């Protein structure tokens, strides 16, 4: 386990993450004024997922943690993805 190898992130990397999150939030708002049709939702979801990934990897230290935790989080995300895919069997074919 990770008791003996605590990773301490630098202020610089935290600030970089903060800047990325703010920038992506601005992009989220800006993209609503671009007419992408049905893909507006897709774009918003991609940006939100990127932000979530940054938070998970850097703020929540997943990038520096044991493989088992990365595996477990990935598994949970996969289940979530499967749930979304199955839901879309309804929305795409209704």
């Amino acid at each position: 386990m990770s008791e003996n190898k605590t990773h301490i992130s630098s202020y610089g990397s935290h600030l970089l993450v903060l800047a990325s999150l703010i920038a992506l939030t601005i992009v989220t708002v800006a993209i609503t004024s671009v007419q992408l049709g049905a893909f507006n939702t897709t774009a918003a979801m991609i940006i939100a997922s990127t932000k979530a990934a940054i938070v998970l990897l850097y703020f929540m230290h997943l990038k520096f943690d044991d493989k088992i935790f990365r595996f477990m989080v990935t598994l949970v995300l996969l289940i979530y993805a499967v749930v979304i895919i199955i839901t879309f069997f309804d929305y795409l074919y209704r």
Partner: protein
Amino acid sequence: MSGNTSTHRMPSYLEYKGRYRGLAGWLLSTDHKRIALLYLYSQTFFFLAGVVMGIFMKLELIAPGQQLMQASTYNALFTVHGLTMIFLFIIPGLAASFGNFFIPLMIGAKDVAFPKLNLFSWYLFIGGACIILLGMFTGDGPPDTGWTFYAPYSLRTNTNVVLSVLGAFVLGFSSVLTGLNFIVTIHRMRAPGMGFFRMPLFIWAMYGTSWIQLLATPVVGITLVMVIFDRIMGIGFFDPAKGGDPILYQHLFWIYSHPAVYIMILPAMGAITEIVTTFSRRVVFGYKAIAMSSLAIAFVGYLVWGHHMFTSGMSETARLVFSLLTFLVAIPSAIKVFNWSATMYKGSLDLQPPFWWAMAFMFVFMIGGLTGLVLGSVATDVHVHDTMFVVAHFHYIVFGGAGLAFFAALHYWYPKMWGKMYNKRVANIGLLILFIGFNTLYFPMFILGIMGMPRRYYDYLPQFATPNFISTIGSWILGVGLLIVIVNLLRPKKVSQEEIDNPWQGRTLEWKVQSPPSLENFEEIPVVEHGPYDLVK
């Protein structure tokens, strides 16, 4: 296993005098066993309240026409009955009470990983319950939506939906924190030598349950918040007039609420496995198959929610996909039943009350499971959807399955938890009466459903009168059986210490310590040297 047999007795967790005395000693205790009993007593209280509501509902349905109450009162009654039984009794169910009490004992730990969080979870549970109760007596009265809060009706009714939804939301937090606590406990606090495949199967069941609690509950939490936002701010997530989609509500609700059925039934199956193994005097048949089937049920259970929605208007493709996936759940469920049967085969069966409860569970669970196939198949579901058939099916699964297993577990672990023994003869008589009452109450509902009687109506056509009358009689028999069982448990017999330490010759770790256990369970942490059910002298 070694190092765990007491040579002298320690003060039990019931006698232990800590920093706080009396009531405060319970309400502020972080001991997992006391918290388990807090859950058990509060759940039993809510269960009995739900039973009384159910008996009144059946009384209203004893004959066609209005008997006791108006339609709106009946609507409120079945809603509150559902809310109480689902959210306050059976979802916390065996997990919160028996899970809390026995996970540390069965894995050789002194407590759960986060004792304070454990107590906080109970306070959230009580807090959520209080909010639901508040919703019944304030505003425009109790909700009339059914426990499912289906949109768009839940957005439009004038009854007090917001408080009930908020209560369920708070209860969800309790469930998530309990699940998290148990996962960490099982991963990090097992005794030396207890690998994952040396854990008792109740622990495997609790492990699967905890993952569902942790991952599925937030979905319903968010959904309920969306209902509150829709009602208060008029956002329109589920309102077609504003571009929303009511079917989305059903998707989100059942993404949680179907796995929630496995939150109820998985710990029940775990307890039944323990009981069947102990009273068969055999090593459990197919240990790994049962362990993996718990995880398989937990996983596949996530993917089948759409079978609640076959008539909702969702796409044909989705209906077929969900129907197929639903049938997959039958496989791990059947693995458990076959393995229980194989464990009993050629065993030296000891016909004690917990074993009879387990047999009653298996009988009604099989009926519930097989009628579930009728509902899992699109072609047959559309005929019986929203009829009394569904009511019968889920009572066979939820009450007959999880409920009877709750009592089976109570009779099995009773001497360990309280250091006393009930009257076994009376326990058997109570079970027999309850079992007859149960089937008299719910089996006619299958027939009513096939005849076409819809659920959730306070009145019905004359052709439905006879099965409804029989069903109401069944509710009284069940009530009498339940009363006998509970009074018997409240009036234990005096027996010798040897008879309560391990009366059933259980082989798992909790039976190696004194009854009731001491505050820290084990004088020294045991070292596990063999499987949980191995017959070792």
